[in-house]
């Protein structure tokens, strides 16, 4: 290659590196802005004295997959007592009011809802699944 072409190439390279930096800076700003605007979720604590079915970091990442596998195993194959039961999540992760009334686990600020509002996902599980643990009187 001729030297003139080489210098032109080098110039192009620096230019695009600079441009890339600017673009990255803009992108970063765009990405972090909404995150800064919304408070990170602080889901309420689980039932005291229990441990989750996996470590919290695994749960945060994989709970949706676990639940989807479990629902097919339980409903279609009839496998009971497996660990990733939605009923189980509700048993440990729903809270009660000061008067001891159960709070739906998908209510504003509650365990499942707090994160999902932040992540902008809206699983429909609780259109069917009970949102509080058992012992509630049967519906009229």
């Amino acid at each position, binding site marked *: 290659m001729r030297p003139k072409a080489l210098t032109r190439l080098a110039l192009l390279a620096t230019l695009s590196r600079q441009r890339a930096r600017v673009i990255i800076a803009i992108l970063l700003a765009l990405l972090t802005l909404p995150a800064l605007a919304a408070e990170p979720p602080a889901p309420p604590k689980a039932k005291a004295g229990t441990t989750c079915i996996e470590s919290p970091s695994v749960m945060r990442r994989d709970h949706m997959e676990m639940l989807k596998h479990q629902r097919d195993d339980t409903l279609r194959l009839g496998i009971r007592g497996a660990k990733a039961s939605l009923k189980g999540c509700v048993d440990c992760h729903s809270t009660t009011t000061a008067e001891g009334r159960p709070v739906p686990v998908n209510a504003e600020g509650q365990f499942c809802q707090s994160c999902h509002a932040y992540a902008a996902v809206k699983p429909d599980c609780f259109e069917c699944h009970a949102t509080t643990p058992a012992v509630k009187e*049967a519906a009229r």
Partner: protein
Amino acid sequence: MTALSRRQVVLASGAVLITGPALARSPGAPASPANRWGLLIDTRKCAADCTVCVSACKAEMGLSGHDRPLTDAQYIRKIEVRDPVGGKLHSLPVMCQHCAKPPCVDVCPTGASMKRADGIVLVDRHICIGCRYCMMACPYKARSFAHEEQTGQQPHLPRGKGTVESCTLCVHRVDEGRLPACVEACAAKAKGAMLFGDLNDPASEIARRVASEATTRIRADLGLDPGVRYQGI
């Protein structure tokens, strides 16, 4: 090492026999084709004005209505049939008949209508799209459709708007080795007209009675091989 007693061997093998209609399946074990759960209903013990099974079912399943008998969810209903000759009246509870060849499963476009290995016919509501073909196909009118948003569900029976539902033979109880709610209530508060058990187990009371007494299936002419049998009609 001391010799194991017979009892210890039986316990260790996991084949623990408990008295009761069914064995609670061990956690992690799937429903088995070795079982075929069924009901035997003696209509001679079923009074026309008795709705104990219907109320027990509603309470167990958390079925709330809107006072609209035509569309409210209903897993069991009482029907009356009169012999045109002589006028003898029979009253019988009709629920999902848990057919061995269920037409609802044949017509379902998504695979939501399904038969479990142990013969219990269910709706997998996770993939039900609410098309209601199954309701059309069922000759027993056993299925209901949830037209409204639901509240007050029981944790063991999720149910929601836009999906089809029906008698589950109380899978959540059967899997724990307990009796279906209607059977339990009929025995406790009425005349014990309903018998639940494993039709595949020759030693079970239901299989013995089916083998030795006259029993009928409703609409047997359709050849669907229902798991629910009746006596006295």
